[in-house]
């Protein structure tokens, strides 16, 4: 297995702040590696170092087996490109944005034109060549930025939260592009994300990060199969709460997560634990339902996030829980902030650590 890039004992400090603390990481050729962690955990810094636009304060970076000299990163920059979290486009046409890197690499004109066309097709923006890049919607802009990186066919493709600000439709287009590029062009991809669900489906391996350190590395099955302690303390994950469990006489346990919220879970556990409920497993109801579900809570909607075909709601039942429902259901139920609702979910839907 080829190692495309490697970070050895890499540290990065910005003045007094330590952004990366003794990072050791290998990027395997042809894989999709996800960096999963909350904001500020060091994901962007690692990506910038792998893109060779930021030099570590200490440690060694190897690219394709050779140690990289930080004084001259021009050559390695040609082999590794980063798509920023906040989309940045040159103040010109879509075509000129995408062709920029090709011009730098002195690619002949007819090849350039063809490559730009193909890249636009890949991100489903055919015919957008002459449009003014900064006048596009944010989803389209992000796709232009990705096309601009893809067209370079670098050995290493780095993506910083590529779908963070996109609605589900654009997000899934992009996720498909990422999967296709990796599958067909064997591009090695490292992507930062704080979206746990994306991390479950897209990458081959996941690196958990927290406070500038790597806490765990493994396949999605290893990391998510059994909810690890590190993942549970991952503040950016919705519906994760620490609590105290008390085993019941009937083979279940009640976990007190504070503010009077008691979650019933399957399995006899006792003591300190963390629970997690997938927003998609929670049923939202306007009235109290008599059902087989063990967990029914009354609460108030405190936040509504419209994501196009889906709606994410934050409901305060003593603790804030995130629920995901379809737009259609949302409209039919005529909900708004402060609406009184009920959350319903089975004990078996709750994962514990």
């Amino acid at each position, binding site marked *: 297995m080829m190692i495309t890039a490697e970070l050895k004992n890499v540290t990065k400090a910005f003045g007094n702040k330590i952004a990366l603390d003794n990072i050791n990481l290998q990027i395997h050729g042809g894989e999709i590696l996800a960096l999963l962690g909350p904001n500020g955990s060091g994901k962007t810094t690692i990506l*910038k170092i792998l*893109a060779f*636009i930021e030099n570590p304060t200490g440690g060694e970076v190897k690219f394709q087996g050779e140690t990289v000299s930080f004084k001259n990163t*021009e050559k390695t*920059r*040609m082999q*590794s*490109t*980063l798509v*920023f979290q*906040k989309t*940045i486009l*040159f*103040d010109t046409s879509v075509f000129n944005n995408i062709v*920029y*890197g090709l011009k*730098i*690499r002195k690619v002949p004109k007819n090849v350039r034109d063809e490559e730009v066309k193909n890249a636009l097709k890949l991100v489903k923006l055919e015919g957008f060549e002459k449009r003014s890049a900064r006048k596009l919607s944010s989803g389209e802009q992000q796709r232009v930025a990705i096309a*601009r*990186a893809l067209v*370079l066919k670098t050995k290493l493709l780095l993506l910083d939260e590529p779908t963070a600000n996109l609605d589900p439709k654009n997000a899934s287009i992009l996720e498909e592009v990422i999967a296709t590029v990796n599958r067909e062009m064997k591009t090695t991809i490292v992507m930062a994300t704080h979206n746990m669900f994306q991390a479950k489906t897209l990458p081959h391996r996941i690196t958990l990060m927290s406070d500038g350190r790597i806490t765990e590395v493994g396949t999605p099955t290893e990391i998510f199969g059994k909810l690890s302690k590190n993942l549970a303390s991952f503040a950016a994950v919705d519906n994760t709460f620490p609590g105290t469990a008390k085993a019941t006489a009937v083979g279940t346990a009640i976990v007190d997560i504070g503010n009077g919220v008691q979650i019933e879970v399957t399995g006899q556990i006792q003591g300190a634990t963390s629970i997690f409920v997938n927003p998609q497993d929670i049923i939202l109801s306007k009235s109290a339902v008599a059902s087989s579900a063990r967990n029914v809570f009354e609460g108030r909607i405190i936040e509504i996030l419209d994501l196009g075909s889906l709606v994410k709601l934050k409901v305060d039942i003593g603790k804030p829980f995130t629920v995901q429902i379809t737009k259609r259901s949302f409209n039919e139920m005529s909900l708004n902030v402060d609406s009184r609702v009920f959350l319903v979910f089975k004990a078996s839907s709750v994962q514990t650590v």
Partner: protein
Amino acid sequence: MPTAIQKWLSRALPLEETILVDILGGIVKALQLIFSGDPTLYGIVFRSLFFSGIAVILATLWGTPIAMLLALRDFRGKTIVKTFFNSLIGIPTVVLGLILYLVFSKGGPLGFLELLYTPGAIILGEAVLVTPILISIATTAIEAVDPEIMNLAKTLGASESQASMAVLKEAVNGVLLSNIASFNRAIAELGVALLVGGNIAGLTDVLTTAISRYTQRGDVGFAIALGIILMIIVFLINTVIITAREAKMLFTLGRSPQ
């Protein structure tokens, strides 16, 4: 002119000779000169535009790299350099004219170039005059570019210099504006052109210096004609600047005193 007014004038202006100024006649003559395409007149206009134009080009050539340095690099004494250029923006043109006169004159350090009283002196002089304002505006324009553009260009494979060019391209509107503002200052100035050019008819006289000569000579018609044309030029320039400001392309532009 009625004798009563003449009497009042000679009492109000106790000079040896009171030059009678025929304003209306002057305006008529001015319009005649302008529309007849009088060669002397338009020679002066052309020289003004040409000298100031080349001066701005020169200032751009040596000023833009300095602006890029000030905007993109950090170095010790950067604030001092910036303050230096900013404070020179409003230098009285006649003071700079004096300095340059001393530099270009026979005993001066650049006397061997024999530039004094030649078009070259005016061009060089005005280039020096407008350099501070060009640098000031261009630096602000480049600083306003998103700092991540530099990283973006680099991650797409650009070298340091190529990345700097990408930043410059993003600032092109502001840089163009710095050129326009510089041209405004150059074409409207008197002190430099007068002292190092000598106001030699047909060779080094420009709009401002010619207005001065014709007014003193009493040739009001010519002076008014030149004045009208100069105002039109300045008006056009300011229209461009104001339109650009409306289109949010302009940053604060300090007014330069004469």
